[in-house]
């Protein structure tokens, strides 16, 4: 996809007025938050597992070069091939090369955000190879020529009647009068259509949730079984994964698996957790004849040793966006980047630079829910703040914001003046609030009051309240 993060404000305004989208977004809160909470509550060790999952990834990141070498050794020992891609372009070239050597005409794909990041489908199509997305949500958005609006629920921005319309438009070989009013009918139809594609495909491409150094294994976690059919039925299996997917051992994988599905969909385990090691063995009746792993850097190595390193712990569960009030309001497409929501607001500037993406780390109320639910305990708000600082230092922030921040800083650094200004300003605002106790418009704050009222201040300032409470505490002898 074309990076369109600098249009975030315009896209968000449009999204707020899109009735279909707003209806569909209701499913995010309904579908994810309660389920995650229930799954977390049912496991007393959940928070201890989160701590351990964080520690495992921190250990990996501190030894990433060594674990990558160990992983590569074990993939090769099992008969697989490892390809190193510094950039998205390198990865595209490597995958195309593998497909062309296999004389591939069609490739099936399991759900993979990393292949979205490297825009693999467009590259294959441009070179005469047809990519077929097999995850139901990915299949739907491929039919629509869209990209995922959520990292684990790519079609969450759509309603079933829209899907029905797409299936009728594309599946013209099926009877017109068929009943597609229920999701189950839509799923069955996709299942039938895609079954044939698995068998016809020459190459199956998947991502990976984990790469296990100890055994040279790639792991995918799915619910539909499409990823498994993709990688089992193709003659060649290509895994595209970024370098930070490494975990040391099977035991470490088990630790993170216990927090992954619970945080993502509220399941104890996803239906299929598949560990793949190398190609078909001599006595194997099925499986791919070749097994390739493309290890992608694409900017991640540059995040190591910086204040953004913690972001590399991310396991792409989607909990941060599922709990984000901004994501709930505007959906994933408004962000204009491959990765939406809070994790995208941190990762996208790291991968694409802050110049084009500065609006993303600003698209947060800093409510902190993303960090509160992150299974890997990634301090997302803190890192968004770091990006805002980078943006300010580099004079990328809009002029009005810069002047506003400067003016505030002037007063904030002069406490007496600040208090004087506030003690004067408060009664004025209070007076202006009138009977309704609300201000409908304010000079220099039209951007705020255009969409909502400002509540008029009541009583004293925060500092006055604080001083009085402290005095009371002292007085009562505490």
């Amino acid at each position, binding site marked *: 996809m074309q990076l369109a993060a600098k249009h975030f404000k315009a896209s968000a305004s449009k999204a707020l007025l899109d009735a279909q989208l707003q209806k569909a977004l209701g499913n995010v809160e309904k579908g994810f938050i309660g389920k995650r909470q229930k799954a977390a509550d049912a496991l007393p*060790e959940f928070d201890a597992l989160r701590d351990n999952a964080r520690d495992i990834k921190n250990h990996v990141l501190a030894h990433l070069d060594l674990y990558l070498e160990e992983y590569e050794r074990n993939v090769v020992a099992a008969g697989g091939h490892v390809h190193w891609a510094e950039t998205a372009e390198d990865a595209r070239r490597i995958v195309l090369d593998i497909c062309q050597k296999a004389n591939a005409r069609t490739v099936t794909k399991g759900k993979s955000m990393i292949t979205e990041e490297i825009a693999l489908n467009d590259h294959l199509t441009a070179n005469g190879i047809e990519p077929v997305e097999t995850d139901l949500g990915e299949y739907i958005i491929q039919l629509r020529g869209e990209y995922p609006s959520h990292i684990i629920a790519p079609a969450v921005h*759509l309603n079933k009647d829209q899907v029905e319309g797409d299936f009728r438009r594309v599946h013209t070989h099926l009877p017109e009068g068929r009943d597609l009013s229920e999701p189950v009918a839509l799923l069955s139809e996709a299942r039938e259509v895609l079954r044939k594609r698995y068998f016809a495909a020459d190459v199956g491409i998947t991502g990976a949730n984990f790469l296990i150094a100890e*055994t040279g294994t790639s792991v995918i976690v799915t619910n*539909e079984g499409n990823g498994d*059919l993709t990688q089992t039925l193709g003659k060649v299996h290509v895994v595209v994964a970024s370098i930070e997917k490494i975990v040391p051992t099977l035991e470490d994988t088990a630790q993170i698996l216990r927090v992954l599905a619970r945080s993502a969909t509220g399941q104890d385990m996803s*239906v299929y957790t598949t560990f793949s090691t190398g190609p078909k063995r001599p006595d194997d009746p099925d499986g791919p004849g070749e097994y390739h792993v493309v290890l992608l850097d694409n900017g991640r*190595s540059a995040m190591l040793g910086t204040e953004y390193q913690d972001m590399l712990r991310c396991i792409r569960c989607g909990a941060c966006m599922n709990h984000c009030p901004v994501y709930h309001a505007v959906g994933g497409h408004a962000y204009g980047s491959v990765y939406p929501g809070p994790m995208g607001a941190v990762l996208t500037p790291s991968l694409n630079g802050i110049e084009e993406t500065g609006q993303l780390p600003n698209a947060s109320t800093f409510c902190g829910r993303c960090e509160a639910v992150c299974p890997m305990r990634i301090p997302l708000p803190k890192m968004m703040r770091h990006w805002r600082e980078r943006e300010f230092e580099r004079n990328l922030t809009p002029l009005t914001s810069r002047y506003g921040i400067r003016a505030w800083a002037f007063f904030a650094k002069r406490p007496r003046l600040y208090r004087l200004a506030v003690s004067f300003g408060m009664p004025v605002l209070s007076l202006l609030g009138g009977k309704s106790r609300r201000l409908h418009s304010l000079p220099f704050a039209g951007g705020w009051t255009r969409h909502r009222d400002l509540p008029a201040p009541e009583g004293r300032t925060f500092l006055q309240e604080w001083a009085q409470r402290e005095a009371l505490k002292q007085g009562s002898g505490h």
Partner: protein
Amino acid sequence: MSGRDTVLGKIRASMRVSGPDAERKAAVASRLRDTPTGVIPARADLPAAGQQELFCAMAAQFGASVARVNDYREVAAEVSAYLRAHNLPAEIRIGADPRLKDAGWDLEKNLELRHGASDGGDLAGVSHAMAGIAETGTLALLSGPDNPTTINFLPEHHIVVLRESDIKGDMESVWAMLREQKGKGVMPRALNLVTGPSRSGDIEQTIILGAHGPRALHIVVVA
């Protein structure tokens, strides 16, 4: 410079390590050697009978059906009964697992067994699991001629036979079994952990069973 050297070089430069020093190497070697287990939920810390019951209850909670039989000789009758109950033809796809050689097939005269990998035309497939994980009601299946991987995914109904004594509390116990069977660091081509029948929530976040994999998962636990 190759992509490999470039990527590894960039990682080392960012981390300000010139090359793999002895201390870092030792930390990696010890983790790979000792495979520390971390936090194991107490949920499945039960005597064997309790783990078996928990496994059956969890598997059922996640949408599988579970039957328990007393002997391998009763497996064929259970498979036939399942097919009849679901109005399925008396045909199954099955691999070459020696544990299922003498499963009473001779007693079910009408049941047709097709051997080898699935070609997508099978309504029901039978596999033998390596282990069950009580913690989450999960089956562990290994690839190979005994239990071709395609049987796990292509048939509409997947029937999985599991020895009661192979039900373990947690994933870590299955890793121990694997290392004992295959050797440390060695994996089968595919290890499938399966928890319930396939499903999708991609349309309006409504969970529907039977996506691309089996619509139904039936587990037969043999005492």
